[in-house]
């Protein structure tokens, strides 16, 4: 998700490992780089359960923030194909 466009280089570069040089012009938000981020976000959320309603992280979640910033789109993978595994722990048997 840290992809940025650097003027003079044809492909987007990762921001976390590219050293800064003098007079470098970096674009972090434009049409093409937003499209790249949207595609990567689609893959990040591909196997994600998306149970925001009951998830503890909701409201402080980077995935939600990125989605609002870059995506707001539907996933192209059918919901039935997400692998959703049942949790191993049985919640009802906790005794007090």
């Amino acid at each position, binding site marked *: 998700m840290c992809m940025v466009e650097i003027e003079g280089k044809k*492909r987007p570069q990762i921001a976390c*490992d590219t*050293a800064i040089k003098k007079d470098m012009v970096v674009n972090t938000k434009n049409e093409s780089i937003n499209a*790249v981020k949207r595609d*990567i976000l689609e*893959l*990040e959320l*591909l*196997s994600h359960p998306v149970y925001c309603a009951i998830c503890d992280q909701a409201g402080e979640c980077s995935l939600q923030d990125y989605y609002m910033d870059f995506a707001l789109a539907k996933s192209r993978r059918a919901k039935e194909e997400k692998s959703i595994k049942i949790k191993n722990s049985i919640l009802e048997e906790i005794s007090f």
Partner: protein
Amino acid sequence: MIYKIVSKNFDIKDSFTLEVAKKNGVYQSIDKAFKRPPYQIESEVEKSGLRGKGGGGALAGAKWCLVSSSNETSYLVINADESEPGTFKDRQILEFDPHLLLEGMILTAYAIGAHDTYIYIRGEYSALAKRLNEAINEAYKDGILGEKVKGFNYRVDITIHRGAGAYICGEKSALIESLEGNRGHPRLKPQHPSPEYYFNKPTLVNNVETIATVPFIINEGAEAYRSFGTSKSPGTLLFGISGHINNPGIYELAFGESMQEFINTLGGGIKNGKKLKAVIPGGASTPILSAKEVKVAKLDYESMKEIGSALGTGGMIIMDEDTCMVSALKNLLSFYHHESCGQCTPCREGTSWVDGIIKNMLIGKAQKDDIELLSDISQTMNGKTICVFAPAVSMVIDAFILRFRDEFEAYIHKGDLDD
């Protein structure tokens, strides 16, 4: 067509024993080499234009220079993790002439200033690791390895490290991670040319066949090596051919031969008299060629790049007219899905998604814009990951769709009709 540089001793009985190997010329270059300073060995290899035979084809001499130019302790690691589908050339050297590899390792270690060397061998090659171990023991007993190599004042020690069945550990930085005891996750490459680092010391990682070629270059000279092949791709390569062919196997050819002629003559033609449909030229990660391109293809790095493919490891997979291309792609994508290390999101999720799409296509559940979706995912996987595994998958998918689009469309229409 055939020139036996590396495969010279393969057909001799017991060629893997020290006695027979020595009788057939192995270890003779060591006396020559140790009388010269190390930089001369390196410059001879540089002059010969030797290119790495692990699939990348980078100049070996330039790679050696990055390690030898540092003053720190350095290491040599041989990449014997041959896991590319369609490639079975390195195992021939390990099985039939391991002493040639050991000789090459001693020369290379001397040239770059390394004393401790490692062979990272694929986990599945357990019998070959045993044979290699026996060869190393023979060499130690004979004074060829150890504190003083053949009496000269230089120490070379070899350790065999067995892998555990991961294709990604053939990638040089993942290999070093695995050798250090960590998970085989590839490392980020710096922008400028730099060597690999094993426990923070500069390390040279080279393929088995590349190092097994060094004794010839020292014995006969750089010019002799350049007399084979083309000017940009000098020398020979152990080309493999398998699939729907009459004479599958390994053939050591000089670079620059015509692929069609190789298939027709040494290969013996397509099995059962069928017509050729497609060839994967250099191990599974190279873009596929249809019969039309095979007619003009030449077996060297530059020519293959010009027609939009890559020479890779030279392991050709031949497919005849009855092959279903969508099933062939499914076969490859299952492999890539299984072997992705999982570090980078585009690769981990992308390989599982495309595997699922092709699986649905084959059981008749193709969606209307599946081809565009495959191309889109392949775009996202290209250029946004740490290693080149995902770009290889992306190129494979693009080549299949470009050259055999009609077969994919047929599955989509079939899916529409069945609904």
